[in-house]
């Protein structure tokens, strides 16, 4: 009888165990291991690790590339919130406006298409767009009589990071837009009708009705976008070949990759990963606390 009871208390474990075990082994264990690694110096191709105390962290503060990387991540975050979130919301509310209801579906689907393409295809596409000699962008500028604006977009340290950021906007704005469309569809129709009776213009209706109603979605997507901006790896890795020219378009994740897998400084790369972890954890806390207050 007693054994049957223990069986009963163990029963939920049977269901939960496989999933939690996978998480513990492949997510939590690496996380802890990464903290440990950051105090060592080691190479991917030798088994020996040397304890170096806080050396890696000291190196971090002397490494000017880290500053470049964080600055680029911040640029990513600012532009992404402005374009993906703010512009995405504007786009969503225009497409949900009754005046466009006939064509909305075409626009909506088109804007959403890039979301469905893998980042590699997008980056390869834009390497054609940005090609300095035969690229679409420079050729278009020449055609439009703006040849003086043509430049090596990915080859100049002044434009490389912005060109990279632009690709991400092209890729992801449709995603956030779609989330806002769903959020707007949930707004009760009466609110708009009431505003219309009050004689509010479309712009006013946007600020009076839409914006307050999607406030929570706005906040959540902002945090998600900012978090994503601090993790960004794919675009600079592919487009500017690991953050070039020089290190002008590098990001934290790219710098981590380069340090670990290219320069074979695995310990230092782990230290960079700790920084990435701290930033993302801080953002997660912001999201959690704010989301809790949103529920009240």
């Amino acid at each position: 009888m007693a054994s049957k009871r223990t069986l009963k208390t163990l029963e939920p474990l049977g269901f939960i165990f496989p999933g939690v075990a996978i998480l513990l082994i492949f997510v939590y264990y690496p996380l802890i291991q990464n903290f440990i690694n950051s105090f060592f110096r080691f190479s991917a191709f030798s088994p020996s690790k040397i304890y170096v105390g806080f050396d890696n962290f000291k190196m971090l503060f002397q490494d000017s590339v880290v500053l470049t990387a964080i600055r680029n991540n911040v640029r990513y975050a600012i532009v992404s919130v402005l374009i993906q979130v703010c512009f995405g919301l504007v786009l969503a509310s225009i497409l949900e406006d009754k005046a466009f209801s006939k064509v909305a579906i075409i626009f909506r689907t088109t804007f959403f298409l890039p979301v469905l393409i893998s980042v590699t295809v997008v980056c390869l596409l834009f390497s054609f767009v940005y090609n300095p000699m035969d690229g679409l962008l420079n050729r278009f500028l020449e055609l439009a009589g703006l040849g003086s604006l043509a430049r090596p977009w990915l080859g100049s340290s002044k434009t490389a990071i912005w060109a990279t950021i632009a690709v991400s906007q092209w890729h992801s704005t449709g995603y956030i837009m779609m989330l806002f469309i769903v959020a707007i569809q949930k707004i009760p129709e009466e609110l708009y009708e009431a505003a219309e009776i009050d004689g509010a213009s479309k712009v006013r209706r946007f600020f009076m009705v839409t914006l307050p109603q999607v406030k929570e979605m706005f906040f959540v997507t902002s945090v998600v976008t900012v978090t994503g901006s601090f993790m960004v790896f794919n675009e600079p890795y592919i487009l500017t070949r690991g953050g070039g020219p020089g290190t002008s378009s590098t990001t934290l994740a790219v710098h981590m990759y380069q340090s670990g897998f290219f320069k074979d400084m695995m310990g230092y790369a782990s230290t960079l990963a700790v920084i990435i972890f701290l930033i993302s954890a801080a953002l997660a806390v912001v999201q959690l606390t704010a989301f809790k207050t949103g529920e009240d």
Partner: protein
Amino acid sequence: MLVVGFILVAYPLFWILMSSLKKSEEISINIWSLPQVPQWNNYKVAWDKGISQYFINSFIVTLSTIAGVVLFGSLAAFGLSRYKSAWTKYALLIVTGGMMLNPQVCLIPLYQLLTRLNIRNTLFALIIPYIAFRLPLNTLLIRSFFLSVPREIEESATLDGCGSLQTYFKIFLPMSSPILITSAILTAYYAWNEFLFAVIFIDSNKYRTIPAGLMSFRDALQVDWGPLLAGMAISAIPIMIFFISVQKYFIKGMLAGSVKG
């Protein structure tokens, strides 16, 4: 403004299609014009020179990840929604916490771990981490659905003599198919497009998935742009059509995904 945006998005996509039918020299010289003679051969070259293998790998990885996520996720969700004890509380904490962790942070230890397990550079090196990193979100997604299942249904099942495992299989799984499909599609989107792990954990061309494979495809072709663009089109179009046809579920999953993670 809408029209400008439309052109900005649609033209490059159209350009891929158009240029994928051109000869490689034509692409750089007659950049705007339609192909003189459609080069369907580009598609054949792309397919034969590697895309087919990447496609198969992506398929295996995606399907396995979906199976793993849906199975382990729904099992855990069942345990987490139908029982209450100290254990489940901790487990829930572990799952919720897992959602906050980024793959970047675990990259190097995971690389070492997979090497030690002797599965780096196999498809398992992608499938297992994919499952691990997708489990938290999907477990919570499915759990929230399970929580809404009335107690009575479960009780009547118990009266009918169903054990908990049977209740899970015969009652919960069938009635939660919409949420399971949502979760499967969300997982598919992730597994099909994942790049970081795919590029770092796989060395061999023969195990590459599409996102990483296209990179080596570019390097291998050097300047043969026609087949490269054809390869890009092949890897984008089927999945586009698939996701548009299941848009309803996909958007539902996106919504849950973004709100919670």
